[in-house]
């Protein structure tokens, strides 16, 4: 159940960092981040940075739906960014949709959260306590209607078989031992699509859905890490080639090993 994601760092020139993310084969959102920058007096906070998120759909002006999602994103980002490190500053996110979004589904919200995280990683100027990755999960009944399974990214499934959908966001953070990375769920949203039926949501379901979402979220995180490593490897290689051309006796540096041991 490995999620099919498209992710890349972008190169918008007037902001501090930008990134694209999408579930599937094309990016769904482009996020830019500027920060820490000057904040207007009304929004200034004396002991922590202010976080502003603007969500823009592909068509039309942002409405109440965009506002609601922006509030969710702001809360999620507040959990991964160490806001006490830069008081009286502003960290501004702009999330631009690249595909038409008539209704903001759980999958799109998950893509937005991942896109914001990716742009934070690209910026490097904002201290973070962890990385938040999100996936959407749906409970789908099997063809004969007896069993139900938990699937991620269920866009290809028949809509009538989807009984409930939800989104889970996990905060991945390094612990004392480098092998285990603890993860905690920082955002849950789950709703049943066929209310009134016997297949409504129960408490145990949530735990199972969350367990189903944990591994794919970790895989999204691994993809993000490998994207950062790739970027660093290209940069180091370019520096090495420049040095080699300047000095006559170039010592060969083993660049590959350093990247693998680099902690993110």
């Amino acid at each position: 159940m490995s999620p099919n994601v498209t992710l890349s760092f972008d190169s918008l020139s007037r902001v501090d960092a930008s990134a694209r993310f999408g579930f599937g084969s094309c990016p769904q959102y482009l996020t830019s981040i500027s920060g820490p920058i000057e904040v207007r007096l009304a929004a200034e906070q004396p002991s922590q940075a202010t976080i502003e998120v603007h969500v823009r759909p592909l068509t039309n002006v942002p409405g109440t739906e965009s506002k609601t999602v922006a509030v969710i994103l702001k809360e999620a980002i507040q959990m991964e960014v160490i806001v006490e490190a830069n008081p009286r500053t502003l960290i501004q996110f702009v999330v631009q949709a690249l595909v038409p979004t008539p209704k903001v589904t759980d999958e799109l919200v998950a893509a937005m959260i991942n896109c914001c995280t990716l742009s934070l990683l690209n910026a490097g100027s904002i201290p973070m306590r962890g990385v938040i990755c999100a996936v959407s999960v749906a409970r789908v009944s099997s063809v004969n209607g007896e069993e139900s399974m938990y699937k991620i990214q269920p866009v290809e499934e028949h809509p009538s078989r989807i009984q409930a959908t939800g989104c889970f966001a996990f905060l991945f953070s390094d612990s004392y031992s480098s092998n285990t990375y603890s993860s905690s769920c920082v955002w849950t949203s789950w709703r049943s699509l066929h209310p009134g039926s016997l297949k409504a949501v129960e408490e145990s379901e949530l735990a199972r859905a969350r367990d189903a979402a944990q591994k794919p979220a970790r895989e999204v995180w691994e993809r993000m890490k490998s994207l950062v490593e790739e970027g660093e490897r290209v940069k180091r290689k370019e520096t090495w080639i420049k040095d080699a051309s300047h000095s006559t006796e170039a010592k060969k540096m083993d660049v590959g090993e350093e990247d693998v041991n680099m902690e993110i």
Partner: protein
Amino acid sequence: MASVLPSSSTNPSASSVNSFLSAAEREAIKAATFQRLHPRIYLERFLEEKIRPDGRPTAENIEDPNAWRNVEVNVGSITTAPGSALVRIGKTTVVCGIKAEICEPELDNPDEGFLVPNVDLPALCSPKFKPGPPTEEAQVLSERLNEVLGNGMLSLSSLCICSGKSAWVLYVDATVINYDGNVFDATLLAMVCALKNVSLPHADFDPELHRTVCTRSETDPSKPARKLAIQEDLVPLAFSFGVFAGSHLLPDPTASEETLLDTYISVILDAHAQVLSVSQLGAGVDNYEALDQGVNNLPSSREADTLARCISLAKKRQAVLIKKVYNTST
């Protein structure tokens, strides 16, 4: 920590004012000052004693119905509107009025009417709102309520008068009169009660004249007013919780507690106590220590615990509340 509050005997400027007040009033002023200056420590001190600032028990005594504030519902008080309701949860007061108008249905959905919920948070309900365009909070509330009410409780095709030509549009307007936390629950309850209270006049579409004629039930008894076709099974009720400092679960938070919470949990149940939707923003209870320990499996079970606890608390509360809501709104 030594007492941070000055005693009146050592403070000469205070003594002249305090001579008119009783000892109890002096204590109340000291406590209110402390709350203004150090809101977080104020709440922490209360929670250490297993009680909340408004006197309710914390969720340690989970079975206690007093963990929730008192709910009062009054329907039909606005005579100029087809449907109305006034709801009070503790001090949070919301009044909801429903206006019905006629319009043409959309081309894509010729058999459906419209339901337009809106929440207004005017400056009179709380000092944190200023006059002007709707704040972010009002917009988020309106959108969340739109999502919940659009879940199938009211069949939009029952609002159609003539397919493709004429349909009812219901403007559900809620105004918060006093903001003391948990506005979402109060507003949802007000909107649901007002919808159940709505009485639509009989409407006929005249195809030759291209207009809709409504008849009052008094003038023509053969064309009575009708109530909305609401599916009783799907009537939603919302229950909000907050988590303070990662260790205290607070059901139904007040305005002063709301600003200090780090996790918000909202559970929406239908009439049969089945969960319609659940959302948790923030880590659950007892989560911060888990991050320090770096244990892999523990955090997920703790979050599941918090949500499961909230759902069962909500179900218990719903059993108590549903009778009250149904009795007053038919």
